[in-house]
């Protein structure tokens, strides 16, 4: 579908247009626009190397592998994922990723992206939690990360726009905001301990500020290839790592705390174009 549109780069840079809500853009073009619009952001400009590598982002390989997996007939039920509804209708992927988490009538609750993907792999394809296809959540070699990267890529350049029309969507987002500021754990940290001010560093890493939506859109733009880990990582992986470093308890995927945090995260980037996939330090 959206092959690596590397040749489109000079054109997009010449136009330099701000992101349109519904318009797909190459992830490197999205990043270049953010860099130009925010010349003083230490966070956005921190790694010249990663900015340079962005057109050859290793995560783009997973887009191709994920596309094959998405349309392949798999699992005990031998069906593709084309019947999976990520909120835009079965198999409709364009713009779906930036409009999650959302409330799904068929399950009667709010789901984040990974929850929904796993739900479909179980319900449609018949995988169980014991199958590595859904059990292995992390690493560039995992089905989950390949599918995540392919599906997310279909929303690149589109503005984060998680729906808040359903009362449960609003409740999840608001609980996520409380969780973001909730001091706790062995060292008293909350998310704002690191993401409350602009330009601060933990060791060598410049941290994104949550209330700066142009920094925050890059911060929440996962999947991203993490150069330091040589793997493509998800929003879930980032949350797990943060909570671990914060010395809270071990957070689990497909759970309400995780979903509420993502609801708040994505809302905090509302209106800004997503970089999908991104490349991070």
């Amino acid at each position, binding site marked *: 579908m959206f092959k690596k549109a590397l040749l489109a780069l000079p054109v997009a840079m010449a136009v330099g247009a701000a992101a349109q809500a519904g318009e797909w853009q190459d992830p490197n073009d999205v990043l270049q626009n953010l860099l130009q619009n925010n010349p003083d952001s230490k966070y956005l400009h921190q790694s010249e190397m990663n900015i340079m590598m962005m057109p050859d982002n290793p995560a783009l390989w997973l887009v191709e592998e994920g596309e094959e997996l998405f349309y392949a007939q798999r699992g005990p039920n031998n069906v593709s994922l084309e019947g999976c509804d990520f909120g835009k209708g079965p198999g409709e992927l364009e713009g779906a990723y930036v409009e999650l988490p959302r409330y799904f009538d068929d399950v009667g*609750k709010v789901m984040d992206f990974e929850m929904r993907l796993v739900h479909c792999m179980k319900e449609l394809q018949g995988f169980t939690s014991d199958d590595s296809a859904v059990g292995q959540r992390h690493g560039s070699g995992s089905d989950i990360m390949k599918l995540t990267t392919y599906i997310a890529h279909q929303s690149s350049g589109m503005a984060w726009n998680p729906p808040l029309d359903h*009362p449960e969507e609003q409740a999840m987002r*608001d*609980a996520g905001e*409380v969780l973001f500021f909730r001091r706790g754990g062995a060292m008293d940290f909350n998310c704002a301990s690191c993401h409350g001010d602009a330009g*601060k560093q933990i060791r060598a890493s410049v941290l994104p500020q949550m209330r700066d939506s142009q920094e925050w859109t890059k911060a929440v733009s996962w999947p991203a290839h993490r150069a330091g880990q040589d793997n493509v990582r998800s929003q879930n992986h980032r949350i797990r790592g943060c909570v671990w470093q914060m*010395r809270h308890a071990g*957070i689990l995927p497909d759970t309400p*705390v995780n979903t509420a945090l993502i609801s708040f995260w994505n809302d905090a980037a509302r209106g800004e174009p997503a970089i999908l996939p991104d490349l991070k330090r």
Partner: protein
Amino acid sequence: MFKKNAVAAGMAAFASVALAAGCAVADGSKGSDVDITAMSAEELAEYFIFETGSFRDQEMQEGGTWRDRMTQDDIQKACSMEGNPDGETAGRVVAMARASYEAPESIELGDWRKGAELADSGFGYRMGHNNDNHGQREPGGNCYNCHVFDPRVSVQGTIGPSLVNYGANRGTSEAVLRYVHEVISNPHQYFPCTEMPRFNTVDRQLLTDEQISHIMAYLLDPESPVNNQ
């Protein structure tokens, strides 16, 4: 360690929430049995943490369960706001912090080399997919994540103030020693709702008195590289 005087109050709050929502057994992993829109955002956050299986059921290094670690004490509760505390909150937090600090009879500087190792160590207290085993390695202070001690080292954080030449600028009088011990043990005594952890209070010992004496030496000893910039 880690006394949690808020546990009872928190549990009472969930009970009333569960009653209001008309449910006996809470399970947030299913969509239909609890009306999450009937709770305030604060109630819902607590409900999600404690009643939905969102965390691994593990014993923590400090003793106690994941539940104990995730239960807020009074200072954590008071400081869970965006931005700085108002004057009333700040005063209350300072008072709570002072009440939980026990001054040692005498304070002496330890070995700045050991202090440097502790300041540069981010090991300890991490739980979840990987668990820090304190039996294999002593937990460190994490100081370098947020403070610059030595500008020749490029990988130190800036969330907290730079501590370069800290001792060179202040000396090692009894008053300075007491102040630095108070700040490392419970910084809320001077900086209410600071991002810095409390390292040694009557309820919590992330660092022992001996470890603190080494870190203090790293900060204050004239021989320490911190004071030779």
